């Protein structure tokens, strides 16, 4: 029953959003909360039921994905709208409003609805005193609808609809406090940078449609796996996967399109938790995982994915080391962890990457919600330099955030340890360099997360004003209960993926096996890296744990006693490095110079917009100038021609003979005077002439 009505899962939040759109303004806050949170609770319950039923159904049906098609959205059932595939056949252009449930989307479905539900409950407390309450929940519900559409779609086009929808909701929610310029700028930035990725996504879709003849996931996967031998390394598949990855870079904030995510912290904290930690940014990972059959056929793309992921991870971690805004630290942490996920996907460890998404959703959402709780307690203060000593004053927040920090740092037993460790192990099997980058990032992650804990909670109080200090209080139950629930999952979620090397049976990986069953040559292709010996795995595991504790101790030494006006260790050791990191490697300024066209050198605009202006100048002045010059030359030659025509041709040629004739006629007329005696005279003259001629000749 749940399975057949799976379309209700996105529909409930859509109804909530619609109700808010039409009636929200008139409703009471309590009604708004009840409706919007209620829709998500319903969606979560339905999701649980659907996944439960799916596991039974799949066991009976050969672990196929469950597909439910409502109607054909694009194209027609009869297949009239056709296009030509790469091998010359014609294929129908079709996309359905269809839903697909398989292990991959089950996992996403559960944690999106679960974490989403907890965040909605949290928001009733966090946003209780804010204006625009119904607008916030309407947007949140719209976001859930889009995200669920994205997850449950059975084809790339419907997924793209959800993709765009979450981008739109991200824009709406980041710019929720639209009175602030910084917020609306950040919203624009997020949407525009996302759009760049979307261009890649669309082009990738075109390639896929052209090669595979269909955009449905089942068809594409079947096409890829059936022709795996001939398609391995095919340049079009490589192009398609690279373009899809560009889309993922935009949505999941990888290099070079990550710049929107730190600025997205302008939005309310629950937004940061939901969208930019747990759900939207994982859409890129989901899309790549969903297209794993294609990526496996393009080793070059996989290498690119792994390298970009690794570089992003270490790059963002290094920036996070020195940030002072509590939410910024978490934002860069998110970018870094997403890098880990792509690193996993790139080396072929798809289930490890998905596992990390799963665990990361819990502890990152918890971190953000906890940060929100801290900010709420500190009456809006977000700068960690002005915090400190909060561990006794807000104990629940403190303890849950500590659990999350232990998880993200990779302390054993907690969730992050298992997922991160699996990624590092698979990375080592692919390339030691990738492992080294991941390892360094893990060390940095531990350091900056514990720095956050120490500066916020475990150091002497640096709170600036007395009113704020007196006002510090624990958050209401609507906020703390979700924190506790998430802390529980941060603790235990990792146990689902207890690796075989430590005596467990990796349920997570087994659950995902049907999705990633690519039968490629088991050689050095990144698709299935050869497993190294067990002893190496234990060694690396030990190193990771050591890194986590090292980070903890380094942070402790630096920040436990950080009173007012403390110095950052990095600033003391290498000020230029500190400044570079603090200014985020000046990437935003670089983009501003090259792309936005707001910087000018004198009168000349810089960057690609400057090129555009220069081209326009060339077009207006040089090219049009040449055209105008040609026109002028034609006109001048016309003047010359007309002068020639008027004076020479008409004057000399036409009038000349006439004038000549007239001039000649004057003497000639004399012969016809009409006077008789003149005629007689002429005759006489002629006669005399004759006489002389005869006499003298």
């Amino acid at each position, binding site marked *: 029953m749940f399975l057949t009505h799976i379309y209700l899962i996105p529909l409930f939040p859509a109804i909530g959003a619609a109700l808010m759109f039409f009636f929200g303004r008139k409703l009471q806050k309590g009604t708004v909360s009840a409706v919007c949170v209620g829709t998500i609770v319903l969606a979560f319950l339905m999701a649980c039921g659907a996944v439960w039923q799916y596991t039974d159904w799949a066991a009976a049906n050969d672990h196929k994905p469950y597909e439910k098609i409502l109607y054909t959205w694009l194209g027609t059932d009869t297949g009239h709208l056709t296009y030509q595939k790469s091998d010359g056949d014609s294929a129908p252009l079709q996309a359905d409003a269809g839903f697909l449930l398989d292990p991959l989307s089950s996992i996403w479905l559960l944690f999106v609805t679960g974490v989403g539900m907890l965040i909605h409950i949290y928001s009733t407390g966090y946003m209780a005193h804010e204006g625009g309450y119904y607008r916030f929940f309407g947007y949140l519900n719209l976001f859930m609808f889009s995200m669920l559409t994205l997850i449950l779609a059975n084809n790339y086009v419907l997924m793209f609809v959800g993709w765009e929808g979450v981008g739109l909701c991200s824009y709406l929610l980041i710019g929720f406090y639209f009175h602030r310029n910084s917020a609306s700028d950040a919203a624009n930035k997020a949407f525009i940078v996302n759009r760049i990725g979307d261009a890649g996504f669309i082009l990738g879709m075109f390639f896929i449609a052209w090669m595979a003849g269909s955009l449905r996931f089942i068809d594409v996967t079947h096409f890829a796996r059936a022709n795996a031998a001939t398609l391995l390394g095919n340049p079009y598949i490589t192009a398609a996967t690279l373009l899809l990855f560009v889309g993922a870079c935009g949505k999941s904030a990888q290099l070079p399109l990550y710049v929107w995510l730190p600025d997205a912290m302008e939005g309310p904290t629950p937004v940061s938790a939901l969208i930019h930690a747990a759900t939207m940014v994982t859409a890129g990972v989901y899309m790549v995982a969903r297209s794993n059959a294609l990526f496996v056929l393009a080793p070059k793309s996989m290498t690119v994915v792994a390298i970009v992921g690794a570089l992003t991870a270490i790059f963002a971690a290094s920036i996070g080391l020195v940030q002072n805004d509590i939410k910024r630290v978490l934002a860069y942490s998110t970018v870094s962890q997403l890098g880990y996920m792509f690193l996993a996907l790139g080396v072929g460890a798809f289930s490890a990457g998905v596992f990390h998404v799963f665990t990361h959703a819990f502890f990152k959402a918890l971190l953000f919600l906890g940060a929100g709780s801290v900010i709420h307690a500190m009456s809006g203060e977000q700068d960690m330099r002005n915090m400190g000593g909060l561990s006794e004053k807000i104990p629940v927040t403190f303890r849950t955030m500590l659990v999350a920090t232990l998880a993200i740092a990779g302390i054993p037993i907690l969730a992050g340890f298992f997922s991160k460790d699996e990624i590092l192990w698979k990375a080592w099997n692919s390339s030691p360099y990738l492992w080294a980058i991941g390892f360094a990032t893990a060390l940095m992650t531990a350091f900056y997360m514990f720095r956050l804990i120490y500066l916020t909670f475990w150091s002497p109080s640096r709170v600036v004003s007395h009113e704020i200090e007196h006002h510090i209080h624990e958050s209401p139950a609507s906020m703390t209960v979700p924190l506790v629930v998430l802390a529980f999952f941060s603790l235990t979620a990792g146990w689902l993926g207890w690796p075989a090397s430590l005596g467990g049976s990796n349920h997570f990986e087994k659950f995902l096996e049907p999705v990633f069953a690519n039968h490629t040559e088991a050689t050095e292709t990144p698709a299935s890296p050869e497993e190294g010996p067990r002893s190496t795995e234990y060694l690396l595991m030990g190193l990771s744990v050591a890194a986590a504790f090292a980070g903890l101790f380094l942070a402790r030494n630096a920040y436990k006693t950080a009173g007012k006006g403390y110095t950052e260790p990095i600033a003391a050791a290498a000020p230029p490095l500190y400044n570079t990191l603090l200014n985020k490697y000046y990437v935003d300024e670089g983009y501003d110079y090259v792309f936005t066209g707001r910087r000018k050198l004198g009168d000349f605009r810089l960057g690609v917009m400057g090129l555009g202006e220069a081209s326009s100048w060339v077009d207006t002045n040089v090219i049009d100038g040449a055209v105008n010059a040609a026109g002028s030359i034609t006109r001048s030659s016309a003047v010359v021609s007309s002068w020639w025509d008027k004076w020479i041709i008409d004057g000399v040629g036409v009038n000349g003979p006439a004038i000549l004739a007239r001039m000649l006629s004057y003497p000639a*007329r004399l012969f016809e*005077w009409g006077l*008789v005696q003149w005629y*007689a005279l002429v005759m006489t003259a002629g006669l005399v002439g004759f006489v002389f001629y005869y006499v003298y000749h």
Partner: protein
Amino acid sequence: MDALLHITTLHYLVLGAALFLLGVIGVLTRRNVVIVLMSIELILNAVNLNLVAFSRYWQGMPGHLGGPGALHGQVFAIFVITDAAAEAAVGLGILIAFFRNKETVNVDEVNLLKW
């Protein structure tokens, strides 16, 4: 008898030329149409004189060159006289037609073809 000068053919020719010249001048310069006609008669008579003079000359020549029978000039002169008479008649007729049209006998005023 001995004369002051011997009248030769040349004298007759010169006289004829002079009369001719007078006649031409009269044709060319006189305004009155009647005078012009009279001048034309004078020309013709000068020519007659010339012809007769030459006839007499050839009569004085020996036989095979002329002799008493060389009357060609005189015969021609008869013709010229006849022609002059006819011409005078026609001329006077033109004069009268002209006078009827223009009420004047000035040659200057025969200028309808003047541009």
